[in-house]
């Protein structure tokens, strides 16, 4: 957008009062009424033209000009008030008439000091402006608005849109390249980190020994847990099954994951069905259960069994042949039927 400037001013008016006595008036006539002048009559002389004093008045209100000031337009003279009413522009902001420099913009006229950025109120007369949704904005504010509209950040330093990642510093977004690493001096990228009020590149930050949590990937400022070859926030080092933090209690590792004691053994089947203790050493497994060496026995007569002992299943518990033989016939019949059906359906 451009601004037009009009010079509407009083430079066309030269105000003079002349003493009639000093002039030769031979055939002079009044510029307005065309009559001659009386001998002792006061005459107004302006730019070589003469008027009766009563004829030298505003073309609009027919009153003498206050303090002799008049404004001329197309050969007519007006008092300041009527000139303004008839011809002067009025400011779209303050509503006052504008004399002197007029800013024409946004289909209106403005005092230079009234035409300001809609957002930051900076005077726009000399630097130009950008029309944005019916508002006049300075270049900075327009860029900022545009950045907001695009969901992008607006650099607090160079006042332009941040196209890539931004770097937050003291609460404001910046282009990362405005900063250098406090340690190695390299130009920073968006992954730079702050420590003690200074910015560091990720490499230097890591080298300073600030651990990063293996779970949330944020630096660990307080207590650090070292486990699974990583570092963790105390509250983020949790059982892979129940997700409760270990908080310093013992954990068990399997395939790169950590488990609490209960879930490790529950998942990996190392709790003895009889004593409910964790099995150290050999494990007997059957029917999705585990037994320690001492407790693998017939679930009825408690006779010890070995890997070679044949046993029957009863409610998913091992029963030795001797005990099974003592079952009542009707139960054995039902168990056999259920067993046969299971075989038949291929389970």
């Amino acid at each position, binding site marked *: 957008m451009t601004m037009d400037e009009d010079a509407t001013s009083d430079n066309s008016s030269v105000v003079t009062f002349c003493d009639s006595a000093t002039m030769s008036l031979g055939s002079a006539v009044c510029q307005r009424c065309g009559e001659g002048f009386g001998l002792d009559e006061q005459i107004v002389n302006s730019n070589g033209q003469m008027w009766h004093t009563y004829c030298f008045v505003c073309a609009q209100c027919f009153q003498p000009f206050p303090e002799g000031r008049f404004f001329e337009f197309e050969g007519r003279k007006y008092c300041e008030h009527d000139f303004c009413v008839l011809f002067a522009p009025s400011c779209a902001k303050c509503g006052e008439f504008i004399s002197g420099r007029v800013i024409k913009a946004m289909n209106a006229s403005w005092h230079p000091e009234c035409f300001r950025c809609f957002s930051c109120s900076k005077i726009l007369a000399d630097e130009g402006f950008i029309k944005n949704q019916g508002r006049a904005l300075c270049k900075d504010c327009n860029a900022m608005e545009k950045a907001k509209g695009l969901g992008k950040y607006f650099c607090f330093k160079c006042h332009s849109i941040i196209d890539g990642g931004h770097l937050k510093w003291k609460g404001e977004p910046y282009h990362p390249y405005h900063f250098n690493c406090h340690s190695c001096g390299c130009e920073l990228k968006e992954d730079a980190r702050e420590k003690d009020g200074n910015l560091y590149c990720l490499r230097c930050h890591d080298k300073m020994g600030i651990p990063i949590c293996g779970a949330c990937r944020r630096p660990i400022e307080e207590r650090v847990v070292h486990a699974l070859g990583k570092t963790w926030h105390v509250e983020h080092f949790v059982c892979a099954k129940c997700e409760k933090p270990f908080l310093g209690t013992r954990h068990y590792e399997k395939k790169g994951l950590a488990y609490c004691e209960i879930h490790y053994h529950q*998942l990996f*089947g190392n709790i003895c*069905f*009889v004593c*409910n203790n964790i099995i150290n050493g050999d494990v007997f497994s059957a*029917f*999705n259960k585990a037994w320690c060496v001492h407790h693998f026995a017939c*679930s*009825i*007569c*408690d*006779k010890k069994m070995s890997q070679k002992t044949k046993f029957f299943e009863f*409610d*998913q518990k091992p029963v030795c042949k001797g*005990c099974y033989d*003592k079952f*009542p*016939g*009707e*139960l054995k019949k*039902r168990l056999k039927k*259920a067993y046969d*059906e*299971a075989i038949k359906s291929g389970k």
Partner: protein
Amino acid sequence: MASKLKKLVDDVKDSSNPELDLVDKGIVNILEIPGFVNLKNLTKVVLAHNKITSVPPSIANFLNLEIIILFNNAIEELPTTLSSMPKLKTLNVGMNRLSALPRGFGACPMLEVLDVTYNNLSEHSLPGNFFCLDTLRALYMGDNDFENLPPEFGRLKNLQILVLRDNDLVALPKEMGELIRLRELHIQGNRLTVLPPEMGNLDLIGTKQIFKADGNPWVTPIADQFQVGISHVFDYIRSDTYKFLYGRHMAAGAAPPPKTNDKSKKISRIKK
């Protein structure tokens, strides 16, 4: 016979291993086992396949007993003193003639495994505080006469194994869905037609889990899912379609299917 028993008891007394094994010895009365009362340090007693008709209240004087196995006897009643045994962890009274559990039984402080398989128990024969047994991790109640389970079942939070095989159950309470540690559930041979949708909370379909549900008169949609596999059953009961169906089924209040299990031949019933 008695001298033989005495020798076995004496062996235990002299050894450092306080476990007594008296399987199939024709014992009728525990108190008549010679020298038995002197084995105060006993931690385990196995009396399976005997002819014991009652358990003396003085059993509770064996303060170190952790495991009692009385499978296949003729016990009709258990003493109330059982619940005061401070270390009792496993009690197996399967295949007896119990028609009730003693008053206050739920106060057992350490009980982890309770086996009452093959008795004559029903929901009316459980003591009021039975569901205070929150240390229980395995409960074997197969071959009994339960028709309904009380909603308090949901309080047995530590239960990992629950066997309800061959009862007369017509429905399961929705509180079953609160037994989040359950990894083994046997409900074969009952009169179940539907499963409460809340059971969808349970994790019973992995390789470490066991879910047995054959021999029930399931409604067609559930029976169809069983045809394709157990995981489909659980997916199905979690669906909104099923929740709606279940709500309607319950509201309709259809009569439960008739009893099909013939229990007249159960030895726990046959009078001597």
